[in-house]
């Protein structure tokens, strides 16, 4: 039985979307270590949020992704917390 490994990522909207895209691309290989990934997106409109996370959703990652618009933490048992933006 796999342990429940959780990762928390905060993504903050800053000026350059291309730079954010490449940071997300760099993140993808490490995501397979986790079962659950909670992402807080800060400063995004709803539509922008969906477009921004799209690279993560088309790469067949094995973890469950839960993406919130704004700050949200359901627990503090994350193995790692990252902030990108």
């Amino acid at each position, binding site marked *: 039985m796999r342990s429940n490994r959780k990762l928390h990522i905060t993504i903050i909207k800053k000026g350059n979307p291309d730079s954010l895209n490449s940071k997300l691309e760099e993140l993808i290989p490490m995501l397979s270590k986790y079962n659950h990934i909670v992402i807080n997106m800060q400063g995004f409109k709803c539509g922008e949020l969906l477009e921004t996370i*799209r690279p993560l959703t088309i790469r067949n990652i094995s*973890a469950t992704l839960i993406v919130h618009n704004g700050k949200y933490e359901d627990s503090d048992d994350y193995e790692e917390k990252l902030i990108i933006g």
Partner: protein
Amino acid sequence: MLSERFDVVLSVDRTLMTNHHGKEFLGFMATGPPVMVPERVWMAIAAPKVKVDDIGRPVEAPYGLRKIEAALLDAGIKAAVIDPDHLGKHLKNAKVLGIGHHDYFALGPPSSEWWVLTGKEPVNSRYFKRFMEKPEIRAAKNNGLRIIVGGPAAWQWLWMPEYFEKWGVDTVVEGEAEKVIVSLVKNALDGKPLPQYVYVGINDVPQVEEIPLIKNASVNGLVEIMRGCPRGCRFCSVTLRPLRHYPLEMIEKELQVNKNAGLDRCLIHSEDILLYGANGIKPRPEPLIKLHEMARSYFNIVGWSHVSLSAVKYAQENYSLISRLSEIILRDDNDFIGVEVGIETGSPELAEKMMPAKAAPYSARSWPEIVRESFSIMHDVRIVPAATLILGVPGETSRDLVKTLELIDELKPFRSLIVPMYFVPMGVLKNKEWYKAKPSEEQLEIMKACLKHDIYWIKDLAKWYLKDMNPFVKYSLKTVISLVEKVAKLFRLI
């Protein structure tokens, strides 16, 4: 006053809330725009209204919605599937609207292909947009209704975010939702914040014993027998899911639900029926014979959703199993069954690249031969394949397309339909005029060859397929087929 109030209403537009007159293949018409007849006539053929009870609950509803309904009911949540024409009275009280769809925006195959070829928006997308604009949904949204969308086409919301904003959708759920939906809905009912997007990873898909059993009847008696597929084709998302076989007892309970609702047929569903209880990708007679005998003990009409061509060849070569199963299913010498199969390409080279295990246990290099032999086997036992081809996959060459064209020609003697699917790379969707992209000359030649093949066989098939249908639908459909043939000849397409 309503006799029952539901906290969660599950629904979808008419293109899916229908039984297609009991003829699954007519459902394909709902993926295209109306051709040569007005939209209302097209929809009357493809997607008639379903019977509902006195408060608007459909007797038959899409299986995916039934599974979500079952998961919520099992968790003690008051939920029901409601017909789209009866939403108003229920949305006044409901706190959550759940929607599941096969193709919200007509971006999937074959809708996208019809859109490209005709330049007209298919009816599934038109009707879904009208559904979301219904005054009763808008009013409920303004009063705080939470909207959760999912189903096989959930991914499309990430490419159409403007609609997500416009209609105030709260959450997109991508993947098998039976486990995650309960906590999402509980949070919604408690007024807690919802995530905007959930992707269900492999640890959160239900184990077979966690899959809820439907509580109310599914469209045309569809029952799932397994989930996932071991073949690993590069173009297919089903293969990413773990493989799970339902035990016969679970299947029987769902057959009973449909029987008790008064349905007269069942449709056995999986990505590959013949792999039920299989040894890897090698079909085994015992579980398949038990499954079919059980289904037949409840229903006179038993249909298949999908089989793989390599499994057809293996099962027949080793056990004469296709003959044995057809003897169980077919009622008499004039009976046929239809089934979806994937040819995808006639090129061994492309088959090796994009679907190396689709031919297994045979070599991908022998793919065209497998297709020919399995079509021949099915022709002999009156199983009619409705086959798909995929055009435009990355790496496809003119040589690959010529081989596909040659294979279509070799399939002419076998009773079948062949539908080319136009692969739309997701990147193209960034361009808002993606649907104006034109197919190459070779792709067009393949489309013409398919049209010629289909018109040749469709008149023969119509005698069987339409024999029990109401006269209006039979007449309308024959008229459409005849008009398509005339126009195709006029433009020298066939």
